[in-house]
């Protein structure tokens, strides 16, 4: 069946019950192509669990996700995960060089990302000339940038970001926010970004979903949600 409107990504009563407790509880939300949805909520409210379900790293125990109108359970998992990229809360880089990390995704399909593409991605994330550096001595902000470049190397349609700045100082935080905005604009990416900070959500997204105990408390355009949350 086709999704209504232009939603590229649509969660429908998405649920995950673990040990008798619904950590994600019937979340329905749509993200239009090229749009950014911020997911806000206190720690432990199920934001990461929701994001993991969107990439099918966990199996929904109820509901499902439609990608471009297709139930994502009908897609081979590797294809799904190529099309829906994910940057985890604490970035994990594989041992080796920055370039090897950036090449990881395409290499899984037997493709070698050309040097020029690696350079272009690294320039985009603000790390030109980092290609041959070993990953061991990168700062937290640099590592997060590499993990964004690595996710982008797969040319995803949707990018999921889990608290991309939670481990960073203020300067790197603004840098990553600018990067996300730039990437979304330059690549027409559709993006779901988790944050526990409503102010950050306001800087990044036009639509916001507030979750509480695994449920949607409020979802809508930024201004509406800010007003309703008493923060305009």
């Amino acid at each position: 069946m086709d999704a209504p409107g232009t939603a590229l990504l649509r969660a429908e009563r998405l649920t995950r019950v673990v040990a008798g407790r619904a950590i994600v509880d019937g979340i329905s939300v749509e993200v239009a192509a090229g749009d950014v949805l911020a997911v806000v909520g206190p720690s432990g409210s199920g934001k990461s669990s929701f994001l993991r379900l969107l990439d099918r790293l966990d199996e929904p125990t109820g509901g499902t996700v439609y990608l471009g109108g297709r139930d994502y359970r009908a897609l081979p998992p590797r294809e799904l995960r190529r099309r829906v990229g994910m940057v985890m809360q604490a970035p994990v880089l594989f041992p080796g060089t920055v370039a090897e990390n950036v090449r990881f995704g395409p290499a899984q399909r037997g493709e070698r990302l050309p040097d020029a593409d690696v350079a272009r991605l690294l320039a985009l994330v603000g790390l030109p000339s980092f290609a041959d550096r070993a990953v061991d001595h990168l700062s937290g902000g640099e590592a997060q940038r590499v993990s964004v470049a690595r996710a982008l190397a797969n040319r995803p349609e949707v990018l999921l970001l889990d608290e991309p700045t939670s481990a960073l100082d203020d300067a790197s935080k603004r840098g990553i926010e600018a990067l996300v905005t730039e990437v979304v604009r330059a690549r027409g990416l559709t993006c779901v970004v988790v944050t526990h900070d409503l102010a950050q959500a306001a800087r990044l997204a036009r639509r916001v979903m507030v979750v509480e105990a695994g449920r949607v408390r409020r979802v809508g355009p930024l201004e509406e949600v800010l007003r309703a949350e008493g923060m305009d």
Partner: protein
Amino acid sequence: MLKGWIEDPTLLGLAQAGVAAALAFAVVLLARRRRIHVEADAAVALVRGLVQIALVGSVLAALMRGPRWTSVPLLAAMMAAAAATSMRRAGRIPGAFRASLAGVVVGSGGVIALMTLAGVIATDLGTLVPVGSMLVANAMNANGLALDRFRGEVQAHVAEIETALALGAAPEETVARFVRSSYEASLIPAIDSLRSLGIVWIPGLMAGMVLTGAPPLAAAIYQFVVLATILSSSALSCLVSTTLIRKTAFSPAEQLVLRGGAAGRG
């Protein structure tokens, strides 16, 4: 001095067991003075161990007089028990028993079959059962080590594995490194035994053969044969079990199921 008093070998054995148990218990009692209380556990273990091995000894004694094919069900039962024991090392990995069983059966069963066909292991019950059981037991230990290491590595690298999955990696690829290190770790005991053979230790089998009057050089070389065969059966076992287990650590939708608590969560 026991030998001078008791002539019946079974009674002599029991008397020796009594002395060994008494000494063990005396040492345990000594520990009481440091307020370490293991005397109940130790007493139960001593009694239980003696009863078990005496029972098995009598069953074996009866079986040894039976036809040659008796060794087949006997070794098969040992393999099933060995698989059940080493499977526990895999923790909550689904399919652990199947992987262990396949590993032990293919590894020790295959090597036993090959070596009897080649005439390296004699087919009489008195040789095949004890030598076979050694191969099964060692395959079990190596298997347990491999599965334990694999579980530990995977649980310590949940975030890395899921990062690779999220980038579109095939599940087997994301754990290939850990399969390799588990396999290598599981073979350390067999390799070290071979390496130190005769220098660090003179194994029980050789000691037994020499004590019963076999020529020492022949006994020594046979001991090497047994250890080399243990290496092949352990290696084959772990190759099979780690290959199987790396698949079952993932769900059909290529999700890591062996995550262990909420590790790697934000």
